[in-house]
């Protein structure tokens, strides 16, 4: 298999208004590569939800996108507080987001479920006090 196209983006943890910039960049790249619109939508939304989570909970982190011939992988790494109970965090409606985030229309407990909904595979590795790495795959 040929080498994947690889893109790395820092996710700024202090700036909630610019959250999503990495996702918008990736969307542009995927458009240029000629991927079908629904695939681009799935990758973009999954990545945006991940970015938002990193800004809300982890003080930012790093997003890496690998584009293979037959799939796109998104790897989100942060050094945040970690997720104590992943099963609980995956439930729709469960949220630990603060009120100021909720008033913006986020924090509905839909982020992780949306990431799972829009990808073909999602893995969460998390250690409390150390950080979280989420790996998602969307098949082409």
């Amino acid at each position, binding site marked *: 298999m040929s080498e994947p196209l690889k893109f790395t983006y820092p996710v700024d943890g202090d700036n909630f208004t610019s959250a*999503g910039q990495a996702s918008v960049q990736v969307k542009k790249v995927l458009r240029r590569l000629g991927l079908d619109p629904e695939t681009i939508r799935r990758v973009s*939304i999954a990545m945006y939800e991940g970015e938002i989570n990193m800004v809300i909970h982890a003080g930012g982190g790093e997003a890496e996108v690998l584009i293979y011939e037959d799939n796109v992988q998104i790897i989100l790494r942060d050094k945040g507080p970690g997720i104590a109970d992943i099963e609980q965090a995956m439930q729709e409606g469960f949220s630990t987001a603060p009120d100021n985030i909720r008033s913006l229309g986020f924090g509905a407990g839909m982020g992780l479920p949306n990431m799972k909904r829009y990808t073909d595979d999602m893995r969460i590795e998390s250690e409390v006090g150390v950080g979280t790495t989420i790996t998602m795959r969307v098949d082409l």
Partner: protein
Amino acid sequence: MTVQTLAGLEGVRALTCPEPEREIRGVYIGDLLSWVMGRAEADNVWITIMTNINIVAVASLADTSCILLAEGVTPEQSVLDTAEAKGVNILQSAKPIYETAMQLREFV
């Protein structure tokens, strides 16, 4: 129906319309942004009363044809500038959400 046509309906006006020829297919209504991203479909009109900057990213990534702000709510100019730059159409309806949606019923 195109976004431009929608902008011409009674009580509706374009606040920024960088892609006026975009076709509309269906409507989604919601204010919780993640809920919208999970449920809205590409080319939908998205009716909401949220006006913060994040609606631009949500509309762009969820690939909706336009944001239709109901109740006459108005975003800050910086939101409109960002939308213009990112090719996101933002329209405004003077009517409440229900009346706005009913007005669209015969077109979508």
